[in-house]
């Protein structure tokens, strides 16, 4: 099981954040309202951690199949801002069988152009018998 090339997204724009906010329903102004973000001590609107989570999920399901995912857990680690370029990738941590199904656990990272890990994720996929 060789992982595909990383998913590289960026430089992130404010439009990318707004598009995700509209899609997700999280309208926290800290992610689009410049004066609000600055008043909170940030240099610019803050990217949504759940956008970074979604990008890692996109990379993983593009590899192992959208219908095959059984678990996806993300931990947020560092702030991301417009202008950052994110690289999402991962590797197999474990292969095993559970409930008669072959499964694989992945460990994923979402890293900025500065090499900072913005978020980490752990995912489980079934690797056979998944209906696409």
């Amino acid at each position, binding site marked *: 099981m060789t992982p595909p090339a990383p*998913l590289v*997204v960026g430089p992130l724009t404010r439009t990318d954040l707004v*598009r*995700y906010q*509209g*899609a*997700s*329903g*999280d309208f926290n102004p800290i992610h689009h309202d410049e004066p609000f973000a600055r008043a*909170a001590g940030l240099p610019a609107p803050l990217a949504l*951690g*759940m*956008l970074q*989570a*979604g*990008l890692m*999920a*996109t990379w*993983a*399901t*593009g590899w192992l*199949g*959208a*219908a*095959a*995912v*059984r*678990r*996806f*857990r*993300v*931990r*947020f680690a560092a702030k991301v801002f417009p202008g950052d370029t994110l690289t999402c990738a991962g590797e197999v941590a474990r292969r095993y069988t559970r409930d008669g199904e072959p499964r694989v656990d992945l460990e994923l990272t979402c890293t900025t152009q500065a090499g900072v890990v913005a978020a980490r994720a752990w*995912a489980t996929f079934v690797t056979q018998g*998944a*209906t*696409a």
Partner: protein
Amino acid sequence: MVDTGALGAAGTPFEMEIERGKVREFARAVFATDPAYLSDVEPVIPPTFLTTAFFWQHGDSDPWEKVAMDQSRGLHAEQEYVFHGPPPRAGDRLTAQSAVTEIYTKTSRGGGTLTFAVMVTEFRDASGRLVAEARQTGVETS
């Protein structure tokens, strides 16, 4: 300031319908090009799609409000989705219910207090089968 009295608080059940256009909109927002999301007439949901429960859950169905986390000191620390089989698809009508299942504190490296709160949302299909769970962890710094 987190209200520890929120521990155990449960929301009223709410309905969530999985819609094809919403799946497509969400998939595009997370830079997915997979035809499983964009071309299938009954697309499966992306792994983090259940966050769109934002559009269906409010008021009495949302016990997170009772946690009363300070927005200026609160952060989304962790999020998990578990699927008991293939994830739901467009056309599925789910019934969901959230509860605050954990509130606990840890000491930060700087010696401050970190207060964590966890809300679990269970998603069931029309037959009542548990198909997915979402687990949200928030943290408030002191």
